[in-house]
């Protein structure tokens, strides 16, 4: 891209940015908390009191501000760079949503306030539930899950409880396509279920013939990512759903890729029984460098009683909490109502777009993905010949001949001023590069990216060593991950915390 690469600099010196503990100076003071008068005789026996200070850094306010400001320069976000990370939907996060979440009344609301004192929050959350119910085409929604994987676990537990309630306790098998995200099988086993992987066809689609063979009365659920992690819509989805339902099992949609459907296709209409949506992808809540997220789950009517507590219900006097002790519920999956600060952002996004804007999200996400796919198709082989959905997967396999791998291309792209695509996922594609531009990037940006990408692939064959030396313009290059894992250094030991574990 043509913006001058400015946010990072290859240091001329080998020293790292010092840690907080390295700049800590014993006795230095930062911000003072409120002063409270009174005696420090608290009546707590010595045995239960801390003996040594907790090993926190001692800094002036300015030192702390500088530390974090300068470190921020060493990270790329959507606000600074194009992040074509497939399956991550790194779209623009509206600043107005941040503002909404920080409004007094929301940000300083105690989660255990009596219901009459949180009418505004209940209305906000109730409204979001209603909107999501409609967009997902489902009958009930829980806002509790804190992320996509948490939503999956919630869905698994709902399915489990559902079958228990029906007395079908032997349904313990969850089928997961081999192209699925790792959270799918992991969530299933966390929920105490048995995971079976189902192989995809070479096209990346589910093999319905093979599927039918493994479906049985032990099958509790089939988890399907739609569009698939290859960015493809299951060509035989309705057949898959029919087959699964035929054996009495449920169909779960991993909705992490819901950006491709937003406003143009409702998972409920496709026959899914359960679906989760990642607000930190599709609904533009910021990803925060790894969270917080939020993973609301929608279910069809037969599963509504099993939703986790607390449940918000609409009454003639507005929204309120439903009875928290319904024994059919799977119980709470986290503390309190949900990540309301995230959910308020999601609500803001949906309200801003409205019925006119929401379908445009999917349409332009498809436009951008298909355009970029077209531009890159001749450069590296892609998965799936026709139209893709919101993302597409290329394989860097042809470059193996030059000793260049998907990861090397990724590093080249870092040097060119981008974040990298998702690499080595889905696992079923060798040397996978998964590219998701989202609807928020302009044609100019996509053109620049395509040009840079093509140039890098070309250099990969003409001057492979150049790419193997990438990234050359970043503060560090290819940290040694093996060393990191061999004898892990997981904390700074400049200053010890004192009073550590004794045995």
């Amino acid at each position, binding site marked *: 891209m043509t913006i001058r690469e400015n946010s990072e600099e290859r240091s001329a010196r080998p020293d790292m940015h010092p840690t907080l*503990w390295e700049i800590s100076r014993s006795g230095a003071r930062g*911000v003072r908390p409120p002063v409270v008068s009174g005696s420090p005789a*608290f*009546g*707590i*026996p010595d045995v239960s009191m*801390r003996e040594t*200070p*907790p090993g*926190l850094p*001692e800094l002036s306010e300015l030192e702390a501000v500088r530390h974090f400001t300068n*470190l921020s320069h060493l*990270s*790329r976000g959507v*606000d*600074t*760079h194009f992040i074509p990370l497939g399956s991550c939907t790194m779209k623009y996060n509206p600043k107005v949503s941040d503002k909404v979440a920080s*409004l*007094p009344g929301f940000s300083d*609301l105690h*989660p255990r*306030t009596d219901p009459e*004192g*949180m009418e505004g*929050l209940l209305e906000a959350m109730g409204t979001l539930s*209603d909107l999501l119910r409609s967009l997902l085409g489902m009958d009930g929604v829980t806002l509790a899950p804190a992320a996509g*994987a948490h939503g999956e676990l919630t869905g698994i537990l709902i399915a489990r409880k559902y079958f228990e309630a029906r007395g079908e306790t032997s349904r313990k098998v969850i089928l997961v396509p081999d192209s699925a995200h790792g959270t799918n099988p*992991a969530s299933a*086993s966390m929920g*105490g279920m048995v995971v079976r992987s189902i192989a995809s066809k070479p096209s990346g689609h589910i093999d319905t013939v093979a599927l039918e063979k493994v479906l049985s009365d032990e099958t509790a659920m089939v988890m399907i990512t739609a569009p698939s992690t290859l960015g493809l819509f299951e060509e035989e989805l309705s057949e898959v759903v029919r087959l699964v339902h035929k054996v009495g099992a449920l169909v779960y949609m991993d909705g992490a890729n819901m950006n491709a459907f937003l406003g143009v*296709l409702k998972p409920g*209409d496709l026959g899914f029984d359960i679906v989760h949506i990642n607000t930190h992808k599709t609904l533009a809540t910021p990803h*925060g*460098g*790894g*969270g*917080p997220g939020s993973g609301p789950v929608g279910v069809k009517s037969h599963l509504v009683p099993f939703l986790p507590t607390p449940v918000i219900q609409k009454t003639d006097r507005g929204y309120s909490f439903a009875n928290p002790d319904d024994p059919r519920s799977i119980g*709470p999956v986290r*503390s309190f*109502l949900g*990540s*309301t600060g995230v959910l308020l952002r999601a609500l803001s996004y949906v309200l801003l777009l*409205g*019925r006119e*804007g929401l379908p445009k*999200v999917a349409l332009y996400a*498809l*436009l951008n993905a298909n355009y970029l796919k077209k531009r890159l198709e001749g450069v590296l082989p892609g998965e799936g010949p026709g*139209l893709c959905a919101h993302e597409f997967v290329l394989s860097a396999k042809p470059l193996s001949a030059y000793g260049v791998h998907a990861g090397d291309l990724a590093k080249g792209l870092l040097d060119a001023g981008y974040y990298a695509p998702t690499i080595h996922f889905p696992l079923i594609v060798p040397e996978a590069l998964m590219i998701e531009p989202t609807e928020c990037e302009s044609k100019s940006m996509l053109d620049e990216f395509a040009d840079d990408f093509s140039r890098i692939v070309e250099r990969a064959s003409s001057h492979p060593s150049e790419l193997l030396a990438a990234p050359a313009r970043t*503060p*560090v290059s*290819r*940290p040694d991950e093996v060393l*990191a*894992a061999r004898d*892990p250094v*997981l*904390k*700074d030991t400049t200053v010890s915390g004192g009073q550590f*574990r004794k045995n």
Partner: protein
Amino acid sequence: MADFIPHTPLETKEMLETIGVSSLEDLLAPYPKEHVLPDLSDIPSGLTESSLMRLMKSMAARNRAGGSVPIFRGAGAYDHFIPEAVSPLVTRGEFLTAYTPYQPEVSQGLLQVIFEYQTAMANLFGMDISNASVYDGATALAEACLVAHRQEGRTAILISEGVDPDIARVVKTYVEGVGCTLKLIPLVSGKTRIEDVMSQMDAQTACFVGAIPTFWGTVEDFSGFADALHQNGSLLILHANPHSLAVLRPPGSWGADLATGEGQPLGIPLSGGGPYLGILTAARAFMRKIPGRLVGKTVDREGRAAYVLTLQAREQHIRREKANSNICSNETLLSIQALVTLSLLGPAGFREAAEGSMKNARKLRARLLSVPGVSPVWEDTPFFHEFVLEMPMESKKLSRLILSEGFLSGLPLSGYSSPGGENRMLWCATEMRTEEEIENLGRALEKVLVRHGGNKS
């Protein structure tokens, strides 16, 4: 009225041409025709920024929040001091809009901050290591119990009544799935007795879970617990309020194997319940067994020190159904927020805040006990900054009445089993409360009791 789509009509046209289709709708061809472009009439029309702000401000104004009512409630979420420098730093776009730092070369800042967070939590909890966060305190504890369970497949989790009952319910949701059961160890005078733990311990005991301080505010003495448990091959898990660890003995020092906590008190706004921060720390022996991200320090290929995500082989994207957990996105931004807060306060400021909370709680308790009909539940049990009192009125009703006087009272404990009870309330005062607010609350309580009776003592 907003869609964040940058395309001009001309660009859209050119792009469609390149793709070889004639309209945006043509891109929906792979989707089932009968379902595409569904009716969205139940979704309202899009709003502009300014009308959204109007709407959301009006909703926010219908909450009785800290800005308008002094908060005397804790019970897992606390109104602590948050330095004003925290928000402008944490909301910097580079942190706020970054993804999980998969590409270390362009994420050194984020990785270093997470590494520093891990250090701060390990030090604070007195444990060897910390992960990069899980969803919240409740799920942190649940995950820790799952680690204990996975050790040898033991299925019994002993859990003190001192643990927040709501958190215990979340643990139950999590562990029941894999066939574990929770056994409650009762509190006696606000304390878990080691003999009660030992009498419940057997070959199926995966772990015992205690709390620092307890949900009811009391401070326990866990001397001997670790030894007793370890002799049985069971683990000690302590769930701690990190704010209290400024002054209270940390889990590591009690010999805990795993220690968890809700990070909200470390500079995270109350925000109606989230997003919060699940803290998960452990002895080094559990390094490869705990869930969640870990950042490690290493060197790059030119020998420069560098940070990376490490021990990923534990995680779902590699181990899939055999992973330590399904966790993927966690609460990084909140961990940064906690770290920034602690860095700004430093150990001295942090301790002063905790001591301020304790001082205010004692003032609050004395003031409330001066109100006729209010009585203590325990006399001498040591407590941190929360305490249970017997009030002269049904507690939910009392809470509503006090709220209409402009204060968020202690948590009504009706519906909670002992030490909860119909007329009991769990009161809290943090360092943010002033003497004036405490006095005004006292008067409001007196007024309410006079006006509405209450079952006189």
